[in-house]
């Protein structure tokens, strides 16, 4: 496995620390006076999601994590496992509920997701940045109210609940930003 020098550190780089895969969130070069330089790094544990701080001596090399980010199509779930397919090889991968995590609430089928693999096993799933989903339940819309900025909860076809403006009606299809779980716009059918 490749190793990386601290001067190659950048956000998104995947490292192996104490046997666990981590992704760099932030990297800051600090050098006290005439002394040793350090890289103060914020990393996310890709297994647990926990964020940790680690301070490396500049010049140190760290082993890369053997993880791959692959675009796969979400097929279906059987209540226990979520099934994905790599579109070029047609190879299928099954991920547990815990592995899919929050991404599950945006998936109804056919979406292209980013599946992170560690030693060939799914480690995490990232939903597409934007999804389009229909509202299955919300209070009746307040016609013409586009100005007050008020919101109400709406349940989407996947079960996810998002805040939407008051004028939105049940049955409408919405564009949602999955990174912030926020309503973006209505989708005209």
């Amino acid at each position, binding site marked *: 496995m490749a190793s990386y020098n601290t*001067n190659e550190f950048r956000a998104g780089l995947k490292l192996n*620390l104490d046997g666990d895969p981590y992704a760099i969130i932030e990297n*800051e*070069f*600090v*050098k*006290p*006076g*005439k*002394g*040793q*330089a*350090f890289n*103060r790094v914020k990393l996310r544990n890709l297994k647990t999601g926990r964020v*940790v*701080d*680690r*301070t*490396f*001596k*500049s*010049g*140190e090399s*760290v082993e890369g994590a053997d993880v791959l980010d692959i675009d796969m199509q979400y097929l279906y779930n059987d209540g226990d496992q979520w099934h994905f397919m790599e579109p070029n090889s047609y190879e299928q991968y099954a991920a547990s509920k815990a592995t899919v995590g929050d991404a599950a609430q945006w998936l109804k089928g056919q979406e292209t997701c980013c599946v992170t693999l560690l030693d060939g096993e799914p480690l995490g799933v990232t939903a597409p940045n934007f999804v389009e989903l229909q509202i299955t339940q919300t209070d009746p819309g307040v016609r013409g109210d586009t100005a007050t900025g008020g919101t109400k909860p709406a349940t989407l076809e996947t079960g996810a609940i998002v805040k939407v403006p008051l004028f939105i009606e049940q049955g409408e299809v919405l564009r949602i930003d999955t990174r912030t779980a926020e309503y973006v716009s209505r989708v005209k059918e």
Partner: protein
Amino acid sequence: MNKLPKHSDWKPLVSQQGLEARAFLNAQIRKFFAARNVLEVETPIINFFTVTDPHIDSISVNKVKHVAFLHTSPEYAMKRLLADFKRDIYQLCKVFRAAEVGKYHHPEFTMLEWYRVGWSYQDLIHEVDELIASLLQNKINLSQTKIFTYQDIFIDYCGFDPWQAKQLDYSHACDRAGISPSTKLSNQEYQELLLDQVIAQQLPKDRLTFIYDYPAQQAALAKLNSAGMAERFELYLGNIELANGFQELTNAQEQLARFEADNQMRQKSGKEKVVIDKKFIAALKAGLPYSAGVALGVDRLLMLILGIAEIRDVLVFPHG
């Protein structure tokens, strides 16, 4: 054919205000030293010898038949001038350091360095204070400058005495600050990390803080006093390190021994040895006058004046 860069890529990054502030700052610095009869000098940027400092890496350049180095500071050359002319000098120049890139670091930056013959480092601390106060006048309201010994600042801000401290004191102080080193650190590395990342972070934003009398291992080119402490000082404005000064080491034998020790440390950490600058050692042998010297980061001062958070934003064309 290479693709042409985007139409706006040629443009300077710095603002008009930044450009003018730098010109004004340089003019003020020159006025300050002219009024005090300190002579401006220029020394070569390209040199055949460079520093042995274990934590500074030089940028090398090809000169016909030889490899040469861009100076990392004008210190050796200026001390050779001091040894011969024995008078007060200053230099305002670009210096170069490989692999230093960060919020406060850029491989090419502007340094102000000056030497006072017959002065103690304590005298020089006061002159640095006067210079900064005059440069920041009507720009930043400074509170009363505070001067600490290295020992006192550790006691006040870290809660232990660095002269008595054990590894556990250092690692606990890191823990408390949420700093987890990836490998075992030496006491010296802990001290450097804590000073920069824990102590400096607690210093009042509007105050000049001087720290003096460093551990002998961090003497660099400073004289040791009778108690074995290095007569070295550093200046912070808020949490940003601005300047580093010495009671200059004048003993050639001791200087050579330190350079050799530096080279051993370089080898231990997998770096190449540096050929020692014999002309610099010879100048010390001929007699460097009793003097104090200091180097100050001009870009950082400009960042503070302009309220800019990243060094690259005060440079006209920062490296990629």
